[in-house]
């Protein structure tokens, strides 16, 4: 078996991490694919860019190909709203997790303050998801 060519080693702990992007809500479609809360784990810039590119590629190909897949049970619009509710619930849980870090991790004073603010917004985010879910109604009622 031929040997693999030498490759550039990935960044190390002292190198700059992959930045978390500032998302312009008007261009949210440029950020479909993986969640930022998932990509944040990949601080190695090459790995981060690869996954970001993969997510974008899969999403773009799916847009072209989805005509061959099953039709959404209650239509595309309601289907998208349900997806937004699911992602809101995910973020609600994520913020609640950051809120618990004051007890589960050793944080600086400022980190503790930010953690408290995260907890403060959990009910607000829950209210947003609840409102959308209430407006949506149960599955099947929208047909």
């Amino acid at each position: 078996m031929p040997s693999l060519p030498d490759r550039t080693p990935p960044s190390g702990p002292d190198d700059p991490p992959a930045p978390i992007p500032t998302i312009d809500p008007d261009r949210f479609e440029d950020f479909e694919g993986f969640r930022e809360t998932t990509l944040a784990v990949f601080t190695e810039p090459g790995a981060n860019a690869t996954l970001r590119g993969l997510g974008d590629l899969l999403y773009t190909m799916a847009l072209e190909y989805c005509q061959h897949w099953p039709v959404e049970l209650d239509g595309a619009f309601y289907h998208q709203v349900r997806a937004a509710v699911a992602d809101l619930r995910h973020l609600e849980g994520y913020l609640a997790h950051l809120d618990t870090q004051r007890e589960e991790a050793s944080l600086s004073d400022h980190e503790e303050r930010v953690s408290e603010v995260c907890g403060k917004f959990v009910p607000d985010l829950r209210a947003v998801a609840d409102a959308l879910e209430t407006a949506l109604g149960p599955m099947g009622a929208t047909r």
Partner: protein
Amino acid sequence: MSAGIQLAAGPPIVDPEAFHVFHGFRETSLCLFTNPEHNAALRATGRLIYAMASEGDNDWPAEPEGHPRHQLRAAVADLHFLQGFLGMLGRPLECSREGHEGHLARVALRLSGQVAEIAAVLDGELGAWRGEE
């Protein structure tokens, strides 16, 4: 492959307390994959990639501003994403529709503003500092 009689995979009901089960791809992306087999495969792949990255003892760059701030910055980015997505659902064409779809679009537009407010406050708490010297 004919998928005419196949049921579509729908977005799951996410329990916020089990949010970690839903790491990986956004639901707004996965909802495009209505073929249940494809949807499940991508969902599992996203979860696996996240699990491997989280468990592994890697030598990747450390977050200069610390783990909690890094995580929150990611949450803020996802909030801005959802602000945009809800805004798209509530675009003028949708809001002008009659009936339930129009009502839902107007609700989505209003909630987009609320998500923006949450993101703005969290962003303000984080500040502009990213650990640079």
